């Protein structure tokens, strides 16, 4: 693992939120390095700082103290434009409630990040259909989010996160709204993409179903890393 590129480096990360006259410390001195191609989970109870950490890695938030280097960019020193460019080009997001754009079709939802990248129509079509093929939803391209099941919606969200071939995909409780079967389907899809495209996946979760797919689990408790565990024999095996 040591020869792999370290794409995320978190050093002495502290994040505090103002609460009344004082503040709440969500992250309290996090040191963590994530390498390219990892399939990693930030695991812990509610309030342990998983989502906050994910948001800082995704450049949606900045640390109060410490440094977060994501793909050679210091998150704290990015302008709004640079931060948006980083997210658009290199980071994909998957949310618990899918966050699909409601009035857009499946195709348009997946296409949106590419439109922001000003890619040509031909390039966009190829990439979108490819992404929909990864998640098995080419037949739903013209459907709207309201016409999809929870599992299908999350697969669209995965396609949207993956369509631009990002370096990192950040997934915040991706299976929280799904039943067991759909959870396994989307996790298998993500794991497959991780192995085929070498995309780094970082999850924030406390779902057992997700944990069995992870190859590295970082346990958080009260904003601190309690345990950092490499899973040698992940139960999931890619089906050929």
């Amino acid at each position, binding site marked *: 693992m040591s020869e792999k590129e370290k794409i995320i480096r978190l050093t002495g990360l502290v994040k505090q939120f103002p609460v009344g006259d004082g503040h709440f410390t969500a992250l309290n001195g996090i040191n963590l390095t994530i390498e390219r191609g990892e399939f990693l989970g930030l695991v812990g109870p509610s309030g342990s700082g998983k989502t*906050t950490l994910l*948001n800082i890695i*995704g450049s*949606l*938030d900045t640390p109060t103290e410490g440094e977060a280097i994501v793909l050679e960019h210091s998150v704290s020193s990015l302008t*709004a*434009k640079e931060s*948006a*460019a980083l*997210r*658009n*080009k290199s980071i994909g*997001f998957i*949310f618990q*409630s899918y*966050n*699909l*754009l*409601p*009035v*857009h079709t499946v195709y*348009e939802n997946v296409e*949106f*990040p590419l*439109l*922001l*990248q000003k890619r040509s129509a031909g390039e966009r079509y190829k990439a979108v259909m490819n992404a929909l093929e990864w998640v098995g939803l080419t037949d739903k391209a013209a459907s709207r989010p309201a016409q999809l099941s929870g599992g299908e919606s999350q697969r669209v969200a995965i396609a*949207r996160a993956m369509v631009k071939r990002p370096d990192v995909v950040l997934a915040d409780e991706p299976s929280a709204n799904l039943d067991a079967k759909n959870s396994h389907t989307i996790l298998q899809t993500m794991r497959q993409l991780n192995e085929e495209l070498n995309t780094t996946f970082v999850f924030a979760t406390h779902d057992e179903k997700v944990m069995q797919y992870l190859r590295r689990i970082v346990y958080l408790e009260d904003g601190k890393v309690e345990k950092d565990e490499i899973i040698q024999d992940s139960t999931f095996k890619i089906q050929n």
Partner: protein
Amino acid sequence: MLLFKTAIKNILGAGRRTWLNVAVLSFTFVLMTAFNGLIDGWVNDAIVDTRDWETGAGQFWHENYDRYDVFTLQDAHGVPPDAFAPYLADKSLTPILVIQAVAYESGNMQNIQLKGIDPSQQLLEIPSRYLHADDDALNAVIGARMARTLNADEGDRLLIRWRDKNGAFDAREIVIASIFNSSIATVDEGQVWIALDKLREMTGMQDEATYLVRSADCPLEQDVNGWHYKDSDFLLEDLYLMAQHSRVESLIIFTILLAIALLAVFDTQTLSIFRRQKEIGTYISLGMTPKQVTRLFTLEGTTYSLLGILVGILWGTPLLYWYGQTGITLPESYTEIGLGMRETMRPIYDPGTILTSIAIIIFMSMLISWLPTRKIAKSNVVEALKGRIT
């Protein structure tokens, strides 16, 4: 272009909320176009009628004449200088002599202005041809308002009394040869028109006039030997002021209507910020800057007005065309006001006015859409994703 396409998609996807805003904005646009058209139509009619009936293309006034001061009439007459002679001969100038007089009808006394006009003139619409008389009768034409005041009909005889140039009173009977209808009250109310040569003879003011009405064919456009030239702008000044006043009223109505329409857009936009917080967060997570999202939401609000105008053009064009053709027939009491209103007012649609209305609607809707969306640029993305923008 991406923002515009997304904005269109978002507002069309919003369904009834969008169409309500579009309907209100299109109604405002069409109503204002109709209202402004009516004012433009009225002003145009009034200008044309005032020129045709009263002012011509300009007037030369005797140096003592002041149309707002009847006391000047006694001294406001003289023989026009020789410089006017060729134009008086070819009738591109027509002389009018005005004196104060009194009319008696059924024992009532009425102060009038006795106006002498050439019976063969064709410069003004006054039906002066009726002033020709084969016998010694003194024919007169009066307007419908004056006829009502004097309780006179065609063929009636009235006694008038006047003072000649020496101040001596004289009196004579006139015959109402014709009663005309004019939207211009100032050629009607308190006016009795008789033949110029007769009036000159009655007053001893041979070859004299109070003012000369100029046709567009007359090249003279400056003061001549103490006769002051008054151009159309001066003569129509009151009308322009009245039109300006009407435009202010129109602007107030427009502002009220637009405010109601924009209130709907503002309401939608404010609700959008709260209802679509996750969407805002999603746009940002996908790589848009908060400023781009602000622009997107502002564009959505502005697009309501664009759609409103488009829809307004679609249903308003045939309606406004029909309205332009048929006009509005006013009750008689309106034409009596004397504002140059014809019996039927036909709107005129000025492209400049329509474009100004469009620009105002678009600019105001852009502004009103931008106000609530400013919050997006300052909001915390993480809070937006959680739906917690306050």
